[in-house]
């Protein structure tokens, strides 16, 4: 896969103080997973270089704008093991830098001139913001249930994955309703699995990325695995969970055996989602052109990668 230059200094005015160094920090450390997803789609759909760059930039700009805003909302001190932008620069610059990225997205897309793509992107940004808003209202809600969190993640996380799957087809002016419906549903599942896999990292499960643990819990947010683990907790156990500061505290509260059993149950539940995802991916066979069908195989490999964090 060729390297795409997502952040190009020439795309942003040089006279704005700190903007370039802020963006350089932001874009240098991410995995760029969503851009890679676009490239994977592009390979099978024969997107032009221009289309591929536009789509990859769009999704990464939106994702990074949401991170800039998210860190400030959550008062997170670190982003990708570095000082978060709002702390390193200022909250005002972090907000403006996020807004600027979103504005840039609209400039780039309107220059390209595909109206359905502009409309869909705007809808995706709305979903993302709705998800952020609702998620913020769930902080310190220690009785929140998994299905409620799924609804938030559908807006906040899955909307980006749906976009990655659907936007390349929209860019090619392919509006096949069943194709978009199926891709949208698959995107929902990818987002859900990605989020659940990410939430497991917070409990140090398959945490090969060495992400900081219990960040969600300490900031008052019960994530999807936390909600699953505590689904049968008494009020007293819930208040003990709230007070946990380390993984040892968690294991002491639930017992290591019960903890591991909960992970297995959680995995099993998500394997069912993966089965359903595969069923949907295979149904694309009849919709995609013969030259595009190689995509199905690649799509089928994605959920395990996202949930179990397995390298391809």
């Amino acid at each position, binding site marked *: 896969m060729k390297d795409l230059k997502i952040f190009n200094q020439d795309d942003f005015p040089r006279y704005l103080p700190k903007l370039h160094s802020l963006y350089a920090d932001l874009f240098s450390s991410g995995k760029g997973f969503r851009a890679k997803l676009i490239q994977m789609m592009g390979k099978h759909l024969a997107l032009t270089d221009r289309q591929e760059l536009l789509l990859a930039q769009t999704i990464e700009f939106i994702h990074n704008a949401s991170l800039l805003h998210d860190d400030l909302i959550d008062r997170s001190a670190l982003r990708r093991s570095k000082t978060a932008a709002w702390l390193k620069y200022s909250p005002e610059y972090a907000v403006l830098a996020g807004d600027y990225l979103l504005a840039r997205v609209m400039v780039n897309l309107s220059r390209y001139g595909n109206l359905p793509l502009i409309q869909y992107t705007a809808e995706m940004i709305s979903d993302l913001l709705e998800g952020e808003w609702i998620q913020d209202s*769930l902080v310190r*809600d220690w009785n*929140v249930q998994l299905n*409620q969190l799924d*609804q938030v993640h559908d807006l906040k996380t899955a909307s980006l994955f749906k976009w990655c799957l659907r936007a390349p087809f929209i860019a090619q002016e392919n509006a096949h309703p*069943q194709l978009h*419906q199926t891709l949208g549903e698959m995107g929902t599942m990818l987002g859900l699995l990605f989020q659940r896999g990410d939430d497991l990292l917070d409990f140090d499960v398959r945490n090969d990325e060495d992400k900081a643990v219990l960040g969600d819990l300490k900031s008052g947010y019960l994530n999807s695995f936390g909600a699953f683990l505590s689904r049968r907790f008494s009020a007293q156990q819930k208040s003990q969970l709230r007070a946990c500061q380390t993984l040892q505290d968690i294991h002491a509260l639930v017992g290591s055996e019960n903890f591991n059993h909960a992970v297995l149950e959680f995995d099993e539940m998500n394997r069912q989602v993966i*089965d*359903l995802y595969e*069923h949907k991916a295979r149904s694309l066979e009849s919709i995609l052109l013969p030259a595009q069908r190689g995509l199905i195989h690649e799509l089928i490999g994605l959920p395990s990668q996202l949930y179990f964090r397995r390298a391809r």
Partner: protein
Amino acid sequence: MEFITLTKADPDFENYLRGTFSHTHRALPIETYHPQTARERVTFRVLPIAQLDTPAWWQVYFWACRPELLGLTLGPAMAAWLNRREWLGQWTRWPSWFALLGLFFLHTGVFLLNDVQDHMRGSDRLNRRRGSQVIQRGWVTAGAMQKWAWVNIALAIVFALPAFFHTPGPLTAVCAVAALCIGLIIQNKFTRFGISDLALACLFGPLLTVGIALASFAAWNVRDLVLGIGFGALTAWVFQVRQFENLFRSKAEGIRTFLGFWDFDRARMMGIGEGVFLVMLHFLNAVYLGIPLGFLLLLPLVCAPLIYTLWCLGRASSPLSSSLIHSQRHALMSDLALTSWWIAALGFTWL
């Protein structure tokens, strides 16, 4: 694992939803998109019936008849009967007992039909806490449940006949108004103005108490109406509180509810305001109906679940807040507590 995804345009769509596609397999709906639209799309997991852990038929029937909601129908009926101590001489014993039995079958029939309708419409497929969920678990097919519903409704009609023969005219009028209310609820057309909720209040309130008074004593008066208004308002509020949990999904899926037309904070304040109004209404009704002072003094205690429900609504920070699930549970408890209190208080007046 075998999955099948069908859209509304597929000829088998309805067969899978009704469960009539096979005698050996059940299709469990595991995912629904765009319900109540031409784009509706459902994915089913198809399982052999033998693989389902189905309880005995009477257990399925018990859960399907919504025992937790029986207080909403049988409670006001019993209170209406106890409200007529001075007319005991005119009590028509058998029509009265049969009417009560008929009411049980009507309750069951209506909730079974409602489960079938919500399954076909998609609302019970989207929210796994709605309805009895016996269809979604594959314990019974929607088609079979619909048959059960009609059998229950037929039994309700049979048991209502003695009362009808006794008081044909007024009871026909009550049934006609009830049919109008049911029509308004099913049509769901004037939801924005709260007409569906008002129809629900009439159905579970004045029409129920007046109907039982007519079936039992061949007459009705203002006391029945006053009692019914209190119960009707209470039931409508309980159902509104239950709507809160679906507010987020209802808006996203285009399902219309009265609360869905309001912004979240206003809807919440309205729910709280209605709860406060309910406490005052029941107090005033109790004074009007001559409930003894000792029972009146107990009312604040009886209203504790209702007040807790209002507290839960007050602290709900979003339509996905877990306190809305608590408020839903406690709203039903409020109804049970108030209904039990009315039955005890009216029963006490007989001593």
